[in-house]
């Protein structure tokens, strides 16, 4: 990417970065507002699903736009994405295990 940019490319790149910034800020503000306004009303499962989805969306913006991965080769994206995908299994396995210890140690 260390080539020379035309003015057109430069302008659109700068614009893309600022719109990503605005989106990131808005998502963060929405998260905090949801946590404070409806945090004690909505069921935990819905609330936490929303927070996880919003955070993953923010992560995609940071990695795609700021770290420029969106514009790299697809093969390279896969070498990063495929190993990370295994974390989904780790999260589910250890969350289930932790919940099981909870039931075991503190029966209702």
């Amino acid at each position, binding site marked *: *990417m260390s080539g020379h940019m035309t003015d057109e490319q430069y302008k659109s790149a700068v614009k893309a970065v*600022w719109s990503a910034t605005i989106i990131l800020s808005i998502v963060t503000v929405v998260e905090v507002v949801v946590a404070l306004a409806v945090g004690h009303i909505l069921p935990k499962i819905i609330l936490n699903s929303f*927070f996880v989805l919003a955070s993953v969306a*923010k*992560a995609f913006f*940071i990695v795609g736009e700021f770290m420029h991965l969106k514009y790299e*080769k697809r*093969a390279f994206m896969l*070498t990063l994405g495929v190993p990370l995908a295994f974390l989904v299994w780790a999260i589910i396995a250890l969350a289930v295990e932790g919940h099981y210890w909870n039931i075991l140690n*503190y029966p209702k």
Partner: protein
Amino acid sequence: MAEVVDIHEQHVENQHHLPSPDNGEGGEKSAMNMSYGKTMMWYFLLSDAFTFSAFLISYACIRLAQPWWPNPNSVFKSFPGLGDAYVPLGFVSVMTFILILSSVAVVRAVQEGHRMNKKGVMLWMIGGIVGGVMFLGCQAWEWNHLIHEGLRPFYNPFGPDANGLTHLVHEKMSVSPGPILFGALFFGITGFHGFHVFTGICINIWAFFATANGTFEKRGHYEMIEKVGLYWHFVDLVWVFVFLAFYLM
């Protein structure tokens, strides 16, 4: 001595005349169309992502194994200069915003680097460094505040009352200390992230002075700013998940 130089030059010469392998990968260019340095920075960050994932997944596992956990709105409710005012998540939102803006400044530095604009790179790198220092300052204030409230790696003063609401042990008689690993996880994970911020600031300061000295201008490209930037954005990326795990959920 002269012979040694000759042999060396011959060796370099030979390398230049090696035929490019015709394997459909574009000859001497890498299959990923990316320089060695940038590729390796990405894989280092991948390994670092696994380290943070291990910490955060352990946190989730330990937290789910507890019958009760402190409510983040009650723990992280203080704002510098506002004393006892109840401002849940206020200060951490400011910290998050500072880190995002600092990240954006470094993206702008990378873009100015593509245009070989030395002054622009220097200006935006200063922005990134200032943002990082401000974030660390905020974190220092928050740690100091929580330590004053009694939080330690193996003591947690945030405990439940009869209704499961979060209170400080020394403020209410009926409250017992909360899950002890809360402090260890909080200081451990935010501390490890803060250490990344600190090293990122050091690297950014180095990159600023290297730019000022004209190192990258002489080299003909500002790829080093891209590599430094990747690390800095990763720090921002990790904060998204630390924020999720400790402050939102």
